[in-house]
């Protein structure tokens, strides 16, 4: 779960990392002034690239107008409901500092660079030698960092552990008036750890349908096509999207019912899948822990109660396959054993 910049900065403040003087407002009237000659008004959105999209503006006199122009903007589909108004800093130097998860070394890693204020992934590509990487394991130390950066690194490490963060990033970490100040904050909390962070209860980067799906234990991602996909297992569902694409179809969504889905869960999955009015439905189930008869029952219940007339292809194999197919047959629904045959068929039926 991504946090907004001001939420990340609030955490920094609690951990005694210097942040610019600033205030969050959701309307121009809320802004009562900041003791600064020039300010920067920053859209508070989760999506990246807000600067390029005009979501960051400097202002000295027309602050309320600037606030007004950024509020109500839509940056890459995300509405700007809040802005952070901060003092403009007299920047002497811009650094990069972050604590991230190093998948390869299976530990946390500290990243430091003097190339702050730019896209770190570009630096990694073009000037990798400018990024100092310190895997954080037994015996590692931050002694190779500049002395004034070390305490901030220690704090980021603590934040990472205590907040269960996948990423805690300051870019840029600005040197201004001899102090190091976090000019930006990017904090991503591990979704798997939200159960132990009740302070982060609301998920903000879901669409409406994704929210409904998540509350039913379904993994759902909206896509741009017209064929609804339902499957069990993220890898299998991703492969289904790929196979469909191979045969000329475009998926309307990714939807994983997970392992051991019940009749009710399958019905919910269908409800969610149909919310975007697809032209057809492709169900791909390889039941291990998931039982084919439960899936079949959920499908049959849903189709009959909603009188669904859409083209439908079903692939239903694995645990309780015979029982599942019997239920489908009794209700006039056929199935194919091959996922590729299903893909070809649904493309045909919806073209």
């Amino acid at each position, binding site marked *: 779960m991504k946090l907004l910049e001001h939420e990340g900065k609030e955490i920094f403040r609690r951990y005694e990392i210097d942040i610019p003087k600033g205030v969050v407002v959701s309307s121009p009237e809320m802004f009562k002034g900041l003791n600064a000659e020039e300010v920067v008004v920053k859209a508070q959105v989760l999506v990246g690239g807000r600067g390029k999209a005009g979501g960051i503006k400097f202002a000295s006199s027309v602050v309320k107008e600037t606030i007004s122009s950024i509020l109500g903007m839509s940056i890459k589909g995300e509405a700007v409901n809040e802005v952070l108004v901060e003092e403009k800093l007299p920047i002497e130097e811009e650094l990069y500092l972050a604590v991230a*998860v190093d*998948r*390869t070394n*299976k*530990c*946390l890693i500290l990243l430091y660079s003097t190339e702050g204020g730019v896209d770190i*992934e570009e630096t990694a590509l073009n000037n990798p030698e400018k990024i100092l990487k310190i895997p954080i*394991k*037994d015996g590692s130390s931050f002694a190779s960092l500049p002395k004034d950066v070390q305490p901030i690194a220690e704090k980021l490490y603590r934040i*990472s*552990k205590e907040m*269960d963060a*996948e990423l805690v990033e300051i870019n840029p970490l600005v040197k201004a008036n001899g102090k190091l100040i976090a000019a930006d904050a990017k904090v991503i909390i*591990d*979704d*798997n*750890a939200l*159960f*132990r962070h009740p302070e982060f209860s609301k998920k903000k980067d879901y669409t409406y349908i994704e929210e409904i799906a998540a509350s039913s234990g379904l*993994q759902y*991602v909206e*896509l741009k096509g017209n064929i609804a996909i339902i*499957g*069990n*297992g*993220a*890898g*299998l*569902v*991703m*492969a289904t*999207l*790929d*196979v*469909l*694409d*191979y045969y000329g179809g475009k*998926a309307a969504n*990714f939807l*994983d019912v997970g*392992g051991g889905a019940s009749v009710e869960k399958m019905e919910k999955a269908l409800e969610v899948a149909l919310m975007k009015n697809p032209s057809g439905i492709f169900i791909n189930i*390889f*039941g*291990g*822990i*998931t039982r084919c008869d439960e899936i079949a029952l959920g499908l049959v219940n849903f189709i009959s109660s909603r009188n669904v007339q859409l083209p439908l292809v079903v692939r239903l194999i*694995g*645990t309780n396959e015979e029982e599942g197919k019997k239920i489908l047959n009794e209700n006039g629904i056929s199935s194919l054993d*091959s*996922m*590729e045959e299903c893909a070809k068929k649904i493309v045909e039926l919806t073209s």
Partner: protein
Amino acid sequence: MMILIDKDTKVIVQGLTGKQGSFHAGKMKEYGTQVVAGVTPRKGGTKVDGIPVYNSIKEALEKHEASWSIIFVPAKFAKEAALEAIENGLNIVLITEGVPVHDSIKIVQEAKSLTVIGPNCPGMISPGASKLGIMPGHVFKKGKVGVISRSGTLTYEIVEELTKAGIGQSTVVGVGGDPVLGSSFIDLLELFERDKDTEKVVIIGEIGGDMEEKTADFIKENFSKPVVAYIAGTTAPEGKKMGHAGAVISGSSGTAAAKIKKLKEAGVKVARLPSEVAKLLL
């Protein structure tokens, strides 16, 4: 030979008395796995499917020998269960999904030389010998191809095609779908390299992270046997998490295309469709 587990492997099931634990322990026993005991705190003294339950691993090991524990415990308690097994010298298969990444890091660090498979994985199977996992046993057939995968059901999909084509498997390991894993593809390839009964390996990868890319480098330098791969997520959009916590693309790396390119450069044959894997092995 096969890697990691064989018919003599003795296993403890943590979370045996729960819904998942009891169901799968029964299936494992049916398959022929030596499930010697179960552990659920406060349920010691009971039995599930004839398997004795103990309050702790320590208690279980006083009465039984075991070298592995398979863990079916909710995410909130997974770290505790895993650390308990590790403290008692057991290798672990951590089936649980939703384990916080910081917990996984701790588990991996404490394990040291013990093997950790998972978390968020279907487990592993040496067909005809032993199953430490939730995969449907009938899909697998004993043979000479090692299979390593980040996915669960996609593994069954591809393995079923292999079995239908008469291509049996030595050991199939689901490494898991999370960003930090106890055993990476490289860890397992090292074992397959030394296993005289494994002649070829299939890798089933997906978007997110750079494990497949690092594996490609390893294969170039250190792996002598033929490898065939399938990478899921070619059509996945950037910036969106597709199910697995590990399957997210950020920026330009971690895409299926990038992985496929590197694997091909390392001499790996990459299937365009799951069904093509079997064809590429022949």
